[in-house]
């Protein structure tokens, strides 16, 4: 018989997590699918559940010198409508599932699930987002890309609760978000790419590209980004195919019921070309 806890405060939640290894459920839009039982029966939870959606301290979005803080129970819908949130994140959020889901799914839940097809995780990684994890032992900050360790595996100790995701203020003047789903809406992605860049005069001061759904976790290469930093736009254009091939080595997609490895790799490469065209073409 599993316990179902409904704490009213953060302190209550952290106390419970000392003695109980729990599923932490905010919106439930992923957990309730994974643990689904027959209609009418209780979900098949095999360990205790901590329902955190009532903790007011975990709701809201605010800005300080560290960046934009999105508290962990904040819904995708609230993120989509917030004037504080980076537009790249809004683009990704607006394509997650459906309006109905976004009305009660939490942003943080998406990265906490660590599904290879988690849309917002790609943006968390490219925007250097940091997760704030709290426990009775204190506070720990983990970079988004380190937080996701594998398929449905995250760097959270059993007594920790994610309380915020923090997006530091980054300096860039161009962005791209492309999610390739199986249809125009309400679909799980086959490939997704987030890109940000800063152009200074005729050179690419810096850029970043992150790929999702092509490996067990988002793919990012600091080596390639370092190679590109400071390159003239003309050289970027000349090196287009080289850049594509460098990334192709890192992208290891699979065949599954949604798509094929070949399609995912081919499209990822096409998207890199499109990104480079956008960068050198001067479109922001």
């Amino acid at each position, binding site marked *: 018989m599993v316990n179902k806890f409904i704490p009213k405060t953060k302190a209550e939640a952290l106390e419970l997590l000392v003695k109980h290894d729990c599923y932490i459920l905010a919106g439930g839009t992923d957990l309730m699918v994974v643990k689904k039982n*027959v209609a009418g029966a209780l979900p098949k939870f095999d360990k205790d559940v901590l329902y955190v959606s009532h903790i007011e301290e975990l709701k809201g979005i605010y800005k300080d010198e560290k960046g934009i803080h999105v508290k962990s129970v904040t819904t995708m819908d609230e993120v989509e409508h917030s004037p504080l949130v980076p537009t790249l994140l809004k683009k990704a959020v607006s394509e997650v599932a459906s309006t109905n889901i976004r009305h009660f799914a939490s942003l943080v839940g998406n990265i906490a699930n660590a599904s290879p097809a988690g849309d917002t995780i790609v943006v968390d990684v490219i925007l250097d987002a940091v997760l704030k994890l709290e426990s009775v032992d204190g506070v720990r900050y983990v970079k988004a890309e380190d937080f996701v360790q594998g398929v449905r595996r995250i760097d959270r100790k059993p007594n920790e609760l994610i309380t915020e995701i923090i997006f530091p203020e980054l300096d860039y003047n161009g962005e791209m978000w492309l999610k390739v789903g199986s*249809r125009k809406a309400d679909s799980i992605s086959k490939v997704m790419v987030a890109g940000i860049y800063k152009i200074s005069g005729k050179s690419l001061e810096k850029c970043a590209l992150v790929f999702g759904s092509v490996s067990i976790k988002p793919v990012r290469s600091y080596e390639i980004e370092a190679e590109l930093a400071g390159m003239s736009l003309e050289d970027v254009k000349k090196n287009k195919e080289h850049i594509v091939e460098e990334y192709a080595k890192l992208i290891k997609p699979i065949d599954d019921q*949604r798509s094929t490895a070949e399609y995912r790799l081919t499209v990822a490469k096409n998207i890199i070309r499109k990104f480079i065209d956008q960068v050198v073409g001067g479109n922001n």
Partner: protein
Amino acid sequence: MERYKTSTPKVDFLPKVRGEAKFTDDISFPDMLFAVTLRSTCSRGKIKSIKLPELPEGYYYFGAKDIPGENVVNIIFSDWPVFADGRVNFIGESIGIFVGNNKEILEKLRDSTIVEYEEETPVFDFSESYIHKAFTKGNYEEAKKKAKQVIKESFETNYQEQAYLENQGIIAYFDEHDKLTLTGSMQCPFYIKRAVMRSCALKDNEVRVVQPAVGGAFGGKEHYPSMIGSQVAIAAIKLHRPVKMCFERLEDMTYTTKRHPSKTEYEALIGENNEILGLKIRVKLNGGAYKGCSGVVLSRALIASANVYVIENLDVVGDVYMTNTTPTAAFRGFGSPQTIFAMEMFIHHIAKKLGVDPLVLQYKYIAKKGDVTTNSGHFHDDIILKELMEKAMEMSDYKRKVKEYAKPGCNKGIGMSVFLHGCGFTGSGESEIINGKVKLVKDENDHVYCYASSAEMGQGNETTLKRIVTNTLGIPIEQATMNYPDTDLTPDSGPTAASRTIIIVGFLFEKCAKHLKEIWKPGVRQEYVETYVGPEYIHWDENTMQGDAYPGYAWGVNIVEVEFDPVTYQVSVLNTWSTYDVGRVVDERIAVGQADGGLLQGLGYGYLETMKCENGRFKNRNLSDYIIPTFEDAPHMETAFIDNPFPYGANGAKGMGELTLVGAAPAVCLAIESAIGKNLQKIPANPEYLMEVMKHEN
């Protein structure tokens, strides 16, 4: 709305929009039990043993040994057992059912049952034909001698899942007279009745079937409910308690019947002056483990194999292949989408190869009144297909766009398909096999009750049939009532399938109403029953497949405009323009609804919906895996109807339930071809396939 000013408020609208209409899973009875199915995990083999877990008090198991009557589901060809007995032929085949009052416990009982199989090698390829049909027209071999060239192509179509929003479900219970009654998500109440009579060894007056609100069917609930109905009936009889079986999406998606996949080969004989002298057509359908209605699906596929084109010499052969997979069965179009896709693509590819405008070829060969059909019958009625084409092209600015989109670097495309659909059952099926009947009863208040076995499943037939009656009688629509069929009250008008509801049942109601009008006595209870008699000039030989295949044909044109994304290989369907000849529209709003819905479902079949079957197992598990179009995928659609009254139709009306789906796949594929400049040979034309096409040189 101005456009619909002559339309009637739908009979079922208020209960449905208010959420008061009762669908199967909304219905409960006191003392009701649930049934959960034990299914084969083996594609082909003998059942060596079934080790059931210990059944707690109030839990039961029923299998083949519990069948009171014949262990067979009564279908057109009855080879599908109600419960597998001694051997299984596909993964998912029903072996037995657990019955009890807690679904979670039932699932645990099922999951802890151990079935041992002696496995045999399953067949998944097209190697074992179990239905074969063939016919000819003219003399293909002779014509070959005159041919300047021979053009050959192959085409492929895939499974399609009906994906009705309401999953399958059925309840067996005992009515107020303690009669065994079934209610459930169905298309054909009398099919279920006869199936239960046969499997439960019951007489005609011992089984009753009552239709509730049905959440979509599209052919998927034409035969399948006969099987699950028999299963719950067996349990209900044994326990003398109501038994309900309602599927959730996973079970419905992975185990119920789908559209037949096809492989077709078309060969054309081209003459000196680019004439199409003859066609050799080979059709292969995947029928799954049991034949069921596949013979009729094959017939329709072959009859439609030359589509609207009148070609003098034909050599047509078709086979249905046994594979150890879930049997395939009815789905809107019933065989014709497969061959109409092939023929439309083929004639356009021929035109491309000959350097001829496809319109020139099409205009030369599209049927006219009096022409000889594919099966050597005749098109007895006026055909306005050319008018439909011209109107559709005008609505869409087609000719200008064809030129514009042909320019290099343009990723937009436009395509047009033309097509027909035979309304009603093949040949003399209506008169000789079905013999449909309808009944009108007028009470002392001169209120008219309309009785037919046509199931309302979204197509609005309650409203359209009632309208035919009241129009004919010259009474206001409120003076008539049409309820969902109840086999105790209504005669058998035949199944709700084959686009026959308006053309046959509607026509019956018109005749019946005319008779009632003649004998009408105000203030007196009167009734009249009308039995179908078809036009005497319709003659059909099922064995030779020669003659007039259908009492009438409906015709259509779909023009689809797309944009192709060369980065992701995805297709956006931007706009569609369609014109249809359905004789005469009974209700404009309902007709446009059928047109929109059928077209989108056909588009899904053509470019989006991908059902994967590997080693006898469907891989798509839910509506997030099996992708049907959403609001955002659906294009803006424009539809126009042109009147062409049918002499044997109610006020000239023909059928349209399937017509609006059958042309969509070729239309969208031709549009994609126009955008990418390469030929397509198979559907769904999904991004993975389009990527392959773009990567390979033609």
